């Protein structure tokens, strides 16, 4: 492994590290929204179970909450495609 790394040029190494960083960044950026969406949906289901008559209102709020939370993952995605070599 170290021999292979020693044989590669500095430019190639930099490109590879950039790709690894971009992938790691995207993966880490997707974790937060995943937790957030889970929280949003969990609380929405809880409130729908408590008050079924307000299910429509809760679904509206849930949809908007999911979409806003997803924007964080999109920011990670944008950074990923901008960093990719």
């Amino acid at each position: 492994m170290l021999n292979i790394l020693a044989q590669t040029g500095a430019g190639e190494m930099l490109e590879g590290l950039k790709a690894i960083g971009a992938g790691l960044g995207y993966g880490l950026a997707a974790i937060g929204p995943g937790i957030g969406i889970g929280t949003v949906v969990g609380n929405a289901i809880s409130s729908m179970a408590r008050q079924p008559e307000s299910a429509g209102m809760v679904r509206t709020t849930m949809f908007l909450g999911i979409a806003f939370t997803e924007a964080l993952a999109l920011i990670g995605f944008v950074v990923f495609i901008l960093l990719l070599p």
Partner: protein
Amino acid sequence: MKRGCWEMKMSIKQKPEEELIVESVSGQPEKRIANHLALRALWVSPLFLIVSAIGWGLSGAVSALLALVLVSFNFLAGAAIITRSVKISPNMLYGSVLGGYVVRLAILTGVVMSVRSFDWFDTVPFAMTLLVTHLGLLATETRYISASLAYPDLKPTSSKEIR
């Protein structure tokens, strides 16, 4: 005779309210909001296409168009997943929303990774349009959301009025 006049007056007064009530009846609030968002994305698309075309040429305009299509698809797919799964069970809703999030991100990544090597794809206008459209459309959509018991999705307007 008097009663007839009274009924006529009542019917004239009640007509707009009836229209509002008919419009508000919808069992799929997220679908209505997603359709409204997609329509708004269609409205703002010329602005992004022109700005991208001025800044990056034809490739920028095509990239911005791709971003707009992906944003609309994202909203519509998210709403369709909720609409279908909420009819089955709360557990299904939970699972499909979280699974749908991963699948939609995978589709987005797959589409971009497959087209990024083409000459007509420009990263910067694509990224800019994707982020600004997604956040901007959502922020403006909050002005049109009622989220009340009577009108759970969009604010009521007369059916002929353009939003």
